[in-house]
C-alpha cells in the first residue's frame, strides 16, 4: 500500500511500489465472475447505444399491421411488438439507454454530495462532524422512497428531477463511508510519517488521502448504480418515471405485466435485460470490494 512509499525511499535500490490499483487489478483479474460481469456491462452499454441505430424502426413508430406479434425474424421485429405495434427490440434498448443514463447521472449526483459532505465532516471533525453526522442520522430514518414518489407526483415527471431526486436520496451511505475513511486516514501512521517528512498538505491529500478514498468510492459507485436503476424502474413501474413515448426498463416491465397473458414477450425481454444488468453490477461491485478492500490484502 502507500505506506511503502516512505519505506522505499530509504532503500538504496529503488523497489517498484505496487500501487493500490495494480494490486486491485491483479486480484480482480482472478475473479472470473466479476470480469464476465464487467464484460457484459460493457457489451450492454454498447448495445443500448448502437442497437437502436441498426434497427429500421424507431422507438415511437407504430406498425399497425403488426401489433402484438411475437418475436420473429421474418417481420424484422426481433423481440416482437407491443400492443401499439411498436418494435420491442428498439424499445428495450432505448429503455436501457434511459435506465443506464439515470443510473450513471444519479450516481454521480449522489457521489458529489456524499463525498463533499463526508470529506468535510471527516476532515474538520469535532463539533462540525458531530452536527453533520447527526443530520445524516436523522435523514437515515426517513422512508425516502415515499418522498421520491411524492416529488414525482407533485412536481411532474421530468427526467432532470428523476436524476436529482434519486441522487439526493442515495448520498447518505456515501457520506458515512467517506467520512469514516477520511477520519481514520487522518490519523494513519503513513500520513503522519509523510507529514513528518515535510510533505505539503496538498501533496499529502493528493498522494495519500484521495487514492485511499478512491478505492472505497469506486466500490460504492458500482453498488449504487444498480440501486439507482432499481429506484428508477420502481418509479416507472408505478407510472411516475419517464413519459411516453420515451421509455425505460421499469416502464416496459409495467406494460409487459399488463399484457403478460396475451403477449408474454413484452414482459420477458425488458425483465431479462433489467435483471441481467442489475446482476452484473452487483457481481462487479462484490468483486471490486474484494479487490480494493485493504483489510483483505493477502
Amino acid at each position: 500500500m502507500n505506506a511503502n512509499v516512505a519505506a522505499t525511499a530509504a532503500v538504496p535500490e529503488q523497489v517498484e511500489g505496487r500501487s493500490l490499483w495494480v494490486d486491485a487489478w491483479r486480484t480482480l483479474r482472478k475473479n472470473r465472475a466479476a470480469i464476465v460481469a464487467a464484460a457484459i456491462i460493457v457489451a450492454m452499454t454498447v448495445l443500448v447505444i448502437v442497437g437502436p441505430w441498426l434497427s429500421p424502426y424507431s422507438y415511437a413508430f407504430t406498425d399497425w399491421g403488426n401489433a402484438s406479434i411475437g418475436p420473429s425474424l421474418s417481420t424484422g421485429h426481433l423481440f416482437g411488438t407491443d400492443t401499439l405495434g411498436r418494435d420491442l427490440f428498439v424499445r428495450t434498448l432505448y429503455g436501457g439507454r434511459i435506465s443506464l443514463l439515470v443510473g450513471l447521472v444519479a450516481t454521480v449526483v449522489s457521489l458529489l454530495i456524499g463525498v463533499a459532505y463526508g470529506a468535510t465532516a471527516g476532515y474538520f471533525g469535532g463539533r462540525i462532524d458531530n452536527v453533520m453526522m447527526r443530520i445524516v442520522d436523522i435523514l437515515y430514518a426517513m422512508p425516502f422512497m415515499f418522498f421520491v414518489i411524492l416529488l414525482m407526483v407533485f412536481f411532474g415527471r421530468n427526467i432532470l428531477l428523476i436524476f436529482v431526486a434519486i441522487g439526493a436520496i442515495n448520498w447518505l451511505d456515501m457520506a458515512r463511508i467517506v467520512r469514516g475513511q477520511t477520519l481514520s486516514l487522518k490519523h494513519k501512521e503513513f500520513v503522519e510519517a509523510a507529514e513528518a517528512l515535510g510533505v505539503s498538505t496538498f501533496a499529502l491529500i493528493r498522494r495519500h488521502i484521495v487514492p485511499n478514498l478512491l478505492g472505497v468510492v469506486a466500490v460504492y459507485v458500482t453498488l449504487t448504480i444498480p440501486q439507482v436503476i432499481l429506484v428508477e424502474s420502481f418509479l416507472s413501474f408505478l407510472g411516475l418515471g419517464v413519459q411516453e413515448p420515451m421509455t425505460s426498463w421499469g416502464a416496459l416491465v409495467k406494460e409487459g405485466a399488463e399484457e403478460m397473458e396475451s403477449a408474454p414477450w413484452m414482459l420477458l425481454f425488458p425483465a431479462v435485460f433489467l435483471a441481467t444488468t442489475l446482476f452484473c453490477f452487483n457481481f462487479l461491485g462484490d468483486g471490486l470490494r474484494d479487490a480494493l478492500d485493504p483489510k483483505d490484502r493477502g
Partner: protein
Amino acid sequence: MLRYSLRRLLAAIPTLLVLIALAFFMMRLAPGGPFDQERSLPVEVEANLRAAYRLDEPLYLQFARYLGGVLRGDFGPSFHYRDFTVTELIATGFPVSFKLGATAILLALVVGVTAGSIAALRQNRVTDHAVMTVSMTGISIPNFVMAPILILVFAIYLRWLPAGWGGSLRNMVLPVIALALPQIAYISRLTRGSMIEVLRSNFIRTAKAQGLSTRTIVLKHALKPALLPVVSYLGPATAAVITGSVVIEQIFGVPGIGRFFVQGALNRDYTLVMGVVVFYGALIIAFNFLVDLAYAWLDPKVKYS
C-alpha cells in the same frame, strides 16, 4: 440499558418532526390542489371548501394544527374519500398490509438464515456456489418483476394459485413470496458471511475439539453470534418490505395501505398521503429502535450507557 432506551426514544423525536415537516411543506409547495377537477369549481364553492378544510389559514398555523392532530392520532379527514378520516383508512388497510409484511419478513428470516448457514458450512463447494448464485439472482430481480412472473407461472400457466386478492391464505402465497424473495437473498448472504467468520473463531474450535456434533455447534454456539448482522439488517429490511408492498399491493390488488398511498398521491389527497408517510415513518423508526434493543441484548460486547 434503560438510559440508552430513553435516549434513543428522545432521538426519535427530531427525526419524526423532520419527517412530518418535510412531507407537509413539500406537499404544500406542489402545484395543483385536491379540488382540481376537469371542470373547475365556482370560486365561492372552492373558497368554502378550502375554509372547511382550513386550507385558507397561514401555512404555519396549518402545520401546528396538523402536528397537534398527529399527536392525538388524528390525521385529519381524507380529501378524496370524503366520508372517511385518514385514521380510519389507515386502520382498515393496515391489518392487511401488516399480515403480508410480517409473514414476508418471517419467511425471509427462516429461509435466509437456513440457506446462509448451509452455504457457510459447505463453503466453496457446489451447495455454497448454488445458494450464492441463486441469492444474487434474487437480489437482482426486483419484486415488481418477480410478481408478474410468479403470476404468469403459478396463476396463469399452472393454475395452482390465485392471482388476485380474496383474503384467504391461498391469496397470500404469491404476494408474500414476491415480497420475501429479495430479503431472503440479502439475509442468506449476510448469514453466510458472518457464519463463516464465526466458524473460524477460537470458541468454535474449542467446541469442535470437545467432540460436539456439527449440529450442536451450529445451533447452540455459532448461530447466536452469527445472527448479529442479520438482526441489524432487520431495520432496513422492514423499510424495504414496506416500500415494496406499495407495488406488490398494486399488482395483486391487495386492499392495504400501499394502494391507498399510490392512489392518494395520484388524487393529490394531501392528508391521506401525509398520513401514510408519517405512519410508515413512525413505524420504521419504532422498529429500528426495537432492533437496536434486540442487538444490545444479543451481543454481550455491546454496552449501552
